[in-house]
């Protein structure tokens, strides 16, 4: 019984958020022009999604975010394992990683614009760049904190460095890798949206937010933001589901 209800737990958060928002807008704590009611936003959301531009923008952003995340994961996971397996290597690259992790991706736009041109590539590569750093950092940490006994066990059984890396370190770092992936996909989404806002794009949720902001169409703006947030939650949920399937042993 209780187990079944657990599937609905995430709704609690949604409902609480909506309730709070409704309260704020019903009480007029924030000017309704600046923060429209959930109903108005939902209407904008619905009409945008149902045949409107928002649906199209949404798909575009999904595509870019997915590309960026996939690229980032493919690059960062092996690299992170490599760095994590050699603490000295990690320490030597730590500066570069922390340096770029702390630099706003938006400040990097001009550079990426020059390197990758003005198309989707730029947006995807800036986002992938940001996500790589986050995933890398988490994977490397996961590997560094792997339980020593297990590494030794594999080593003594004659596992090569590479096998230890893949059979043990990779597995040991999985819980942390998923933290990284979930952070990474959120960051990729954020950067994609910001890139769509500030380097310019014909489409995408960021474009939608930017345009709505310029036009002062607040319901539309919040609808686009909500779409981005929901997308982020969805992508996170995806990773969470994968994690639940694959990482059954954490804390054991």
């Amino acid at each position, binding site marked *: 019984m209780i187990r079944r209800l657990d599937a609905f737990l995430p709704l609690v958060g949604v409902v609480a958020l909506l309730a709070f928002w409704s309260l704020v807008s019903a009480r007029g704590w924030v000017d309704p022009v600046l923060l429209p009611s959930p109903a108005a936003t939902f209407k904008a959301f619905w009409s945008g999604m149902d045949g409107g531009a928002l649906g199209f923008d949404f798909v575009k952003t999904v595509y870019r975010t997915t590309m960026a995340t996939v690229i980032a994961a493919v690059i960062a996971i092996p690299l992170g394992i490599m760095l994590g397996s050699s603490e000295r290597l990690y320490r030597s690259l730590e500066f570069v990683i922390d340096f770029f992790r702390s630099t706003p991706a938006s400040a990097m736009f001009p550079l990426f614009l020059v390197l990758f*041109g003005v198309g989707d590539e730029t947006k995807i590569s800036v986002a992938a760049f940001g996500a790589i750093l986050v995933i890398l950092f988490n994977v490397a940490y996961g590997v560094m904190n792997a339980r020593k006994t297990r590494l030794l066990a594999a080593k003594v059984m004659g596992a090569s460095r590479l096998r230890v890396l893949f059979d043990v370190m990779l597995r040991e770092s999985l819980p942390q890798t998923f933290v990284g992936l979930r952070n990474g996909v959120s960051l990729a989404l954020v950067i994609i949206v910001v890139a769509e806002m500030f380097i310019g794009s014909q489409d995408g949720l960021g474009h939608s937010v930017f345009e709505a902001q310029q036009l002062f169409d607040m319901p539309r703006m919040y609808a686009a933001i909500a779409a981005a947030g929901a997308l982020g939650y969805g992508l996170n949920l995806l990773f969470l589901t994968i994690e639940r399937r694959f990482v059954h042993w954490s804390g054991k």
Partner: protein
Amino acid sequence: AQDKVKVGVFPISSSLPYFVAIEKGYFKKRNIEPETIKLMGGPANVAALMTNQIEVSAVLVTLEGLNANVKKPGVAMYIAMHSQTPEYKMEQFVVRTGLADKVKTIADLKGLKLMSAPGPANLNTAKGVLAKVGLKDGDYTIDQLDMGQHVNAMKAGTFDGGYTLEPGATIMEKMGVAKRVEAGVISTYILGSPKADAFAAGCAFTTDFITKRPDVAKRFAESWAEAVDYIKKNPADARKYLAKNTMTPDNLVDEVPMLGYTMTKDMSPEQLGYLQKFADFGTAIGVVPEKIDIKTVVKGF
């Protein structure tokens, strides 16, 4: 096949001729197929021009274009510009509705919390205008703010007023959150006459484009000229292209001010003089690092 031209477009009302030329088929009939690349703001456009990723920038703020030309001469050659004046409203001072009774002129902004359109060019222009009406640095506070936040900030009462651009100002008026104090302030205060044309932005080609594909560049400029002509003759009709292509609210399409679209080849010596004066102002406030002869940055076809 048609000649492809890569055009960086910042979708604001200033790029209207571009959209008119597309919609009216002016490019097409000259065998040109423009490729629209949306690029928000000056830095993105300049970077793209410098690396030849675009050949044309549909709207490039004059001071930014001049600056780019200092850094890399010939990177942005203006073929058309548009003037902002008290009539062709763009830059202006506004004030919150609640203070509209007290603030009738710019000088009345004394002691208030002001915002400004972002970037040193805008900020210094605002400060320059305020100085002209006799307000010194400590008489007011001024913060630059992203254009997307201007209406918000007025509505929320975060600021009392400030220096803003279109279509924000019209939106504010329409919503009743702020009132125009005075528009066309560059003409009046910086260039010294309400009649003066403030050529604050325009359409620019790269020298590369002009020299490597002179013929295409010429036809592109001709299409632009035809569009400018059309807008001059049928302003009401031209407006409707704003709604579809630029960030102009549908309900304001008929109200946002138009600009004085001009081809550089058609500029009178007087107008060129205003442009030079404006460029010198840029140098004076440090936005353009050195004095520049505007003749080196305009190109007529």
